[in-house]
């Protein structure tokens, strides 16, 4: 069957591209991370996947930015090696808008590696109180952040906290897509069974639910691996984790219900009705309730899980094939389960 081969090809592509393509350059941390207004400092930037020493003719540029319009540029930037960059700043005496302290973003621009940003990388404080807002603000506007370079080539975005785990996007997220497709198919065949009581439909509904349950478990496990790196621990009783566990319990209950009748037809009919009911209650569990509570999960407090800044074109080139590949694999597993079940039923003389 062509779609089985397609799923194998796509998953191989996702495994190879997902694990081998490098991350873009980024700034991991800076030192010192606390500054004082009026000082002259040598700020060291520690890069990840950077090649600072290989900068060709154009100079490296470094900024500390207060907001979109207020920034100061380093007077000089010297690469110590490929991953350490030293930038010398003469900090103004005052902060913009009369602030006494602020967190500044660090932006470094490399002709080839492109611009990288460390959000809220350094804290800056003012020595004494004063309110020369106008003059201070103009100092911060002398060197705006402009003419930034963009890194070309096939690479994934660098994001602080997430780092290399961004690759889990191709494994964790497609599990939920596959789960939704599989559970939808399961509910669809349950519906068909209620309209036309053929044992075939009941077996299909159960097989899709089993495969969906498997993908739910895989999604939970990949999520826990991800959470271990980004949230600090695999299980933090996050509402999204809890609701997912409950959603999987519903389907376990479905399997128990299906097998708890002496008359298989009766069990199949009641299980089909419950399956449709369960599918309808899956929506509030996975998509409505998590939004009512605080959650660490992206997308839980109302924003979509993936914004345009999270998923660039390179990632899309792997992410969409990953969704298709894993979903097809799910259907393949379901089909195998369905055929095994049919053979077993034949052997028992039930068919």
């Amino acid at each position, binding site marked *: 069957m062509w779609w089985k081969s397609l799923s194998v090809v796509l998953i191989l592509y996702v495994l190879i591209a997902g694990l081998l393509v490098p991350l873009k350059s980024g700034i991991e941390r800076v030192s010192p991370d606390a500054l004082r207004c009026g000082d002259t400092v040598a700020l060291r930037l520690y890069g990840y996947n950077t090649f600072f020493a290989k900068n060709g003719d154009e100079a490296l540029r470094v900024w500390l930015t207060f907001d979109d319009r207020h920034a100061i540029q380093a007077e000089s930037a010297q690469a110590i090696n490929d991953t350490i960059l030293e930038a010398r700043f003469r900090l103004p005496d005052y902060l913009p808008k009369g602030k006494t302290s602020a967190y500044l973003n660090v932006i470094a621009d490399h002709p080839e590696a492109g611009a990288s940003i460390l959000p809220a990388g350094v804290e800056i404080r003012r020595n004494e109180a004063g309110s020369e807002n106008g003059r201070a603000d103009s100092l911060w506007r002398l060197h705006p952040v402009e003419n930034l370079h963009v890194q070309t080539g096939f690479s994934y975005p660098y994001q602080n906290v997430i780092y290399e785990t961004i690759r889990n996007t191709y494994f964790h997220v497609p599990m939920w897509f596959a789960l939704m497709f599989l559970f939808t198919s399961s509910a669809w065949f349950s519906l068909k069974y209620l309209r036309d009581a053929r044992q075939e439909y009941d077996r299909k509904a159960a097989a899709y639910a089993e495969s969906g349950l498997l993908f739910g478990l895989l999604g939970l496990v990949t999520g826990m691996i991800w959470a271990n790196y980004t949230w600090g621990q695999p299980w933090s009783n996050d509402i999204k984790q809890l609701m997912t566990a409950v959603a999987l319990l519903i389907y376990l209950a479905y399997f128990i*219900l299906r097998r*708890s009748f002496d008359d298989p037809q009766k069990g199949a009919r009641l299980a*089909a*009705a419950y399956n449709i009911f369960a599918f309808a209650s899956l929506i509030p569990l996975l998509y409505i*309730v998590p939004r009512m509570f605080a959650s660490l999960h992206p997308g839980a407090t109302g924003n979509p899980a993936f914004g345009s800044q999270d998923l660039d074109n390179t990632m899309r080139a792997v992410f969409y094939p990953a969704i298709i590949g894993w979903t097809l694999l799910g259907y393949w597993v379901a089909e195998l389960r369905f055929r095994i079940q049919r053979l077993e039923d034949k052997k028992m003389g039930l068919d």
Partner: protein
Amino acid sequence: MNWKILPILLRKEFLLEFRQRYAISGIILYVCSMVFVVYIAALRATPPVWNVLFWLIVLFASINGVVKSFVQESGNRQLYYYQIAEPVALLVAKIIYNTVLLLVLSALAFVLYGLVAGNPVKDLPLFLLILVLGSSGFSIAFTFIASIAAKANNSATLMAILSFPVILPMLLTLIRLSSIALRLMQDTAYMRDILNLLAIDIILVTLTVVLFPYIWKD
């Protein structure tokens, strides 16, 4: 659909309950003993704990109150109902009857638990509204699940494992709303939660009405 049979079926439900008083007495006694057990197990319950324990009492009372609605009638009698009434009318009658039953049970639980463990409710009208919403929601979901579970031999276990995960979104919303009524939480936009509850209720009613005929025919 013939709605004329609905009042007759409803009357039947109440009459049946009145004739078999041991069943309703049993469930009332269940609520009373549960209130005392819960109170003794958590003697000095702070308002947040009170809130959760109260809803757990209501949850268990509801499950046990509803599960008997299909179990207590014999197979022959169910066959008779099947011949004279449409399944949807029968279901609606059961849901209305169970809503009334659960309202009585949760009001009883509130009065009793408030009596022994103190009453931390600050916004009584809101709390009563939540009780009504909760009773009707529980009644819809549990009536449907009870109709499935009653067909099996291990109906008590099935009732619990089938209904707990399904009822959870509703229970969480109810606890959240009632913590607003207890002034444990400041949220002026609780109308949204009430609408959420109503939306869940409407989805459940639609589903049960569509699916019940398939469960009912045997």
